[in-house]
């Protein structure tokens, strides 16, 4: 079994290293095939481990010692228990699909080999993150995914906007990582170890204040990685990267690392329900906040990115309220249909020659049947219509909110569900229905390669049927996680809730269809609605990026300039140069002693004579004075 663990863990690394050998060469098909093949091996190993773990066992290995200094002992250890095997399955399935898809998507790209190197490296880091058995290993994976996401967002590095977005993502993550490091330090300081089992056993013995701070700091780290407010601006800008990157990183894996952290640290968060309430409230806020911004956006990928942000809010609501298995379940289902949505969007982008504005598309369902079906079904799953996967996970979260008597959160989430349905189908209607506005721009779209569609189909399947796994999943995961069942007390309330939600969502879908499926013009910024205050507020993301720019980036830039010009150049450089100058000038000035002129040398001789006599006099007098 350990063999499978290592295969699942290191196969992506081998793929990455193999691809990086060719990263300077022009595109070679075999790089993509090898990388995808290795990822598939990782998937198969994860599946084998899943069957093993479902039988009730866990696999726990220690590969080697990393740090053994004094009392600090941190090994490279890995654990495959119920939670991590679920994450492993999600990661490997989505990664394999994305790898195969990328072979077709990056077909004409010069950096084909480099792309697979980064992509497989990312998967490796994510595997380290979910399979690690201590907080330090988690942090290594954490940083690794941050780095690979930087490389992948800024993949087209000669585009200024891409590099800027990559830096923004990395820096925001870094700020949050400071919080996470402090949390890890607190954990080590108070419990003496970083291993999960030791920490969770000890955590009950600590003072509540300490545990609260640990929880807060760890959540700050999760906030950065999962783009919760206020560290959320990087997620929308991260769409500068290639679409498979968005599918893998910003739908299924990296952004869910924050949720994974909270789920994994559930013994800690169980002790501090107040922090949990805060997390849930923040999650609900983010859900509504992101959904509102997606309502008016005209960038296809950004709409999907905001939808991811919104769903992450849902997951944090569940985790914050203590329903960890629900959060994990939603993570799993969401990964499937969100990745599918992104990949479909990638097809559309390719067909429309990288055009992103859905208002400039339209009527594509005649040309791109496969993509149309996939994206529609994925949107249905996202909206939470029975019997697709989204229903089981999203409605469960709504139930959790209701049962735990957090009615405000429940209402917010319900409203957001309606908004989600609206903007998802706004997107679908604008792209695939209505008049073919793309003809105005002279674009000739065509469907994606067959094998790309075939690669996307497992995701479609899972998006449809994942709901049926719920009970199996529940039994598997609750060996480790708290197994609270959330049942509304009265049957009546339950049915009213469920049917009501469904009707609300379907109404939103119909409204979206009615408004957008017959759209026949491209808005150009002059209509009244576009100039209204609400529209502008949402369009500019509540002016938050501008606020960050003015308040944080610009002053920091000024500070850096001052530090460079005033301190570094004037003080540090001047000191170093000054020392060198002193030596140089001294040499230059004493060169005159040896100018070959006897007269000068005689003068120097007399100077030396005077100095020596003075010294002799001084020492003798001093000697006599002291002795006498």
């Amino acid at each position, binding site marked *: 079994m350990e063999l499978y663990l290592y295969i699942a863990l290191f196969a992506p690394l081998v793929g990455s290293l193999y691809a990086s050998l060719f990263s300077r060469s022009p595109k070679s098909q075999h790089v993509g095939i090898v990388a995808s093949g290795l990822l598939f091996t990782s998937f198969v190993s994860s599946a084998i481990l899943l069957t093993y773990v479902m039988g009730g066992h866990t696999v726990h290995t220690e590969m080697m010692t990393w740090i053994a200094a004094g009392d600090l002992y941190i090994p490279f250890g890995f654990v495959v228990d119920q939670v991590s095997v679920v994450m492993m399955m999600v990661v490997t399935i989505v990664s394999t699909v994305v790898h195969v898809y990328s072979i077709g998507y990056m077909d004409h790209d010069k950096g084909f080999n480099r792309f697979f190197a980064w992509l497989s490296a990312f998967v490796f880091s994510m595997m380290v993150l979910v399979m690690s058995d201590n907080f330090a290993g988690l942090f290594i994976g954490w940083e690794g995914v941050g780095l690979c996401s930087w490389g992948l967002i800024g993949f087209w590095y000669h585009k200024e906007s891409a590099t800027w977005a990559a830096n923004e993502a990395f820096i925001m993550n870094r700020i949050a990582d400071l919080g996470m490091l402090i949390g890890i330090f607190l954990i080590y300081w108070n419990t003496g170890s970083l291993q999960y089992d030791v920490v969770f056993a000890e955590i009950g013995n600590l003072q509540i204040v300490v545990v609260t701070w640990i929880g807060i700091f760890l959540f700050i780290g999760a906030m950065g990685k999962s783009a919760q407010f206020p560290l959320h601006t990087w997620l929308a800008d991260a769409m500068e990267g290639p679409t498979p990157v968005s599918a893998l990183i910003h739908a299924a894996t990296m952004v869910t690392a924050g949720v994974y952290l909270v789920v994994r640290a559930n013994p800690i968060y169980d002790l501090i329900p107040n922090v949990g309430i805060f997390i849930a409230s923040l999650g609900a806020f983010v859900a509504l906040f992101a959904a509102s911004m997606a309502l008016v956006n005209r960038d296809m990928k950004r709409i999907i990115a905001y939808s991811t942000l919104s769903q992450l809010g849902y997951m944090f609501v569940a985790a914050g309220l203590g329903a960890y298995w629900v959060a994990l379940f939603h993570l799993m289902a969401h990964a499937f249909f969100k990745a599918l949505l992104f990949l479909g969007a990638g097809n559309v982008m390719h067909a429309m020659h990288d055009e992103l504005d859905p208002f400039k598309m339209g009527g594509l369902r005649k040309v791109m049947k496969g993509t149309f079906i996939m994206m529609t079904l994925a949107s249905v799953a996202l909206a939470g219509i029975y019997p697709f996967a989204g229903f089981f996970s999203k409605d469960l979260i709504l139930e959790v909110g209701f049962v735990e008597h957090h009615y405000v959160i429940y209402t917010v989430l319900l409203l957001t569900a309606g908004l989600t349905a609206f903007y998802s189908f706004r997107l679908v209607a604008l792209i695939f229905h209505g008049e073919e506005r793309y003809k105005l721009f002279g674009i000739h779209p065509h469907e994606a390669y067959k094998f790309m569609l075939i690669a996307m189909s497992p995701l479609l399947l899972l998006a449809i049927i994942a709901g049926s796994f719920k009970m199996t999943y529940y039994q598997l995961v609750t060996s480790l996680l708290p197994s609270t069942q959330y049942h509304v007390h009265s049957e009546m309330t339950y049915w009213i809730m469920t049917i009501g939600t469904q009707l609300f969502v379907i109404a939103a879908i119909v409204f979206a269809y009615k408004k957008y499926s017959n759209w026949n013009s491209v808005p150009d910024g002059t209509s009244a609605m576009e100039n209204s205050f609400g529209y502008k507020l949402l369009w500019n993301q509540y002016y938050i990026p501008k606020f960050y720019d003015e308040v944080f980036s610009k002053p920091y830039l000024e500070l850096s300039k001052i530090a460079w010009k005033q301190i570094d150049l004037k003080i540090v450089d001047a000191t170093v140069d000054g020392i060198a100058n002193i030596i140089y000038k001294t040499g230059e000035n004493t060169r005159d002693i040896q100018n070959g002129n006897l007269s000068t040398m005689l*003068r120097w001789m007399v100077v030396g004579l*005077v100095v020596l006599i003075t010294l002799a*006099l001084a020492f*003798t007098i001093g000697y*006599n004075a002291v002795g006498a």
Partner: protein
Amino acid sequence: MFEAIAFYLFAALTIVMFTITVMTSQALYAITAMAAGMIFISAFFFILGADFLGAIQIIVYTGAVMALYAFGMMFFDTTRDVVEKRTNPQIVFVLGVLAAVMVVAIFVAPVVSNNIQALYPIQENVGNSQAVGMVLFTKYLVPFELAAVMLLVAMIGGIVLAGKKMDKSLTLMKEEDIGTMDDSFEPQEGGH
């Protein structure tokens, strides 16, 4: 009292003479003042009871050394004024004064202990020359002989350096060749 008068008189004269030597711009004045200074220094030796030394001073220094310098001065074209490049006279003056003050301070301040044993004490009943001779040929014999050798070497060196046509030997040449020897002399041109 006479001693004091003599001392101050000759001290003033010596200082004036030597100052002229170092300050004047005319070589002839310098050499003349130098010779005078040497004579006055020998006066000091006589005052101090070092008769032999005084006589030696007059004979060797004033007679031989200054005559040598006079010959040298005739050889070089130093009858014209000595051209001295404009230098920084203050530094020179300051350094000289400083050196003088230092040395005077050393001598005036009681830095020298007072219980010095005389190694070769002066005997009172003999004259100075006799006393000098007694010490010179017994205790200082080896330095005396070495000084003699050194003077010989210096003499030969001086002849070799300054002589003309030293590659030809007069005693070994035939008589007719001596008459046809080239006798002109010009300084060679060329730098260093």
